[in-house]
């Protein structure tokens, strides 16, 4: 009979004992309510601009590292620039998702070529890419450049080569593109702006 009673108490107190032990310090202290650390506290801020529509919202790009020599800047967040008079810190769903554009898995990372009839991309070096492209261009230009038209007017055009220019490039590369193409004699030239 005595055994039975002891047994019972053992069973019943197991829970209580356990919990008491837990409360005496075997359990971790209940975590204090702490908000997530503000992730930009030590990020580097760069003033930039959304590349999508023509509102050209000011954005602040935040990158890890302080742009010191050994720290590779990686953009971790973008939000609206509150100083910009047009967007005043706001962004649309496209702008608010810019980070995923910068880090899109579909970004091109190195030059590639797809040979005639091939079903594959092949990685090539920049040097090879520029060499092969300019060889094509020079052969094309030398073969098809028109110095004078039928009436004998100097026209200096190369119209077997065409160029569609980006509307997302900045003004400076845009101007340079214009300058280079006119220099080459290109007339088949258009931009996204038309359509």
């Amino acid at each position, binding site marked *: 009979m005595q055994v*039975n*009673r002891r*047994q*019972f108490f053992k069973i019943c107190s197991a*829970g209580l004992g*356990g*919990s008491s032990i*837990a*409360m005496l310090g075997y*359990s971790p202290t209940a975590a204090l309510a702490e908000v997530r650390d503000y992730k930009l506290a030590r990020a580097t801020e760069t003033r930039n601009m959304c590349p999508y529509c023509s509102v050209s919202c000011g954005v602040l790009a935040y990158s890890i590292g302080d742009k010191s020599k050994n720290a590779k800047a990686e953009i971790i967040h973008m939000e609206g620039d509150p100083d910009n008079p047009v967007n005043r810190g706001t962004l649309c769903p496209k702008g608010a998702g810019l980070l995923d554009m910068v880090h899109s898995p579909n970004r091109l990372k190195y030059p590639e070529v797809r040979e005639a009839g091939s079903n594959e991309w092949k990685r090539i070096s920049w040097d090879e890419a520029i060499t092969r492209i300019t060889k094509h261009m020079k052969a094309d230009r030398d073969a098809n450049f028109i110095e004078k038209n039928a009436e004998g007017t100097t026209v200096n055009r190369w119209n077997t080569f065409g160029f569609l220019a980006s509307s997302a490039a900045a003004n400076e590369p845009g101007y340079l593109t214009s300058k280079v193409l006119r220099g080459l004699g290109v007339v088949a030239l258009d931009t996204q702006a038309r359509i």
Partner: protein
Amino acid sequence: MIRDPKDLQRYTPQERANHWVVGISFILLALSGLAFFHPAFYPLSYLFGGGTWARILHPYIGVFMAFFFVLMFLRFRMLNVMTKTDKEWLSRVGEMVDGDDHNMPEQGKYNGGQKAMFWASVVCMVLLLVSGVLIWQAQFSPPIGLVRLGAVVHAVAAVAMIALILIHAYAAIWVKGTIRAMWYGTVTRAWAKQHHRAWYREVTGK
């Protein structure tokens, strides 16, 4: 092992094992369940490796217990059919609690109280199982209204069940010579004759 051949076999080893599987499960469930029920009991969850473990384990233990409870139910259901005598016993349970069992009617293997306990447990267990499934977020996602109802039913049924089991355990302690029946299966003849005379007669033929 039967040390005293005169003792009476009350439970087979299978029955005892079944009971304790359910019993241990229930204790674990009660401890982990209480942890979710009231902040004062939350530290009980550390017995299981923390709140998350308690949350993960509780429903599995519940299903495990339910399975063995069904076996137990099948074993004992016929023995727990209520009779007129049981009802009379129950009507006079006050005298029993008061410590005066002299005038209690003669009882079979189980008295009215035990039978009532059995059926109450069955009801609670069904409620717990069904409501438990409803609130098992990791596995099921029923309509939110049902989940809310489930949560209340689970809590109420669990509290009732805990109370029942406390009474069940206390009764076993209070009535000396009882617990051994669930430990090693036998009771003394005197115990049997005192508490379950009809059963005593039945097994001894006296």
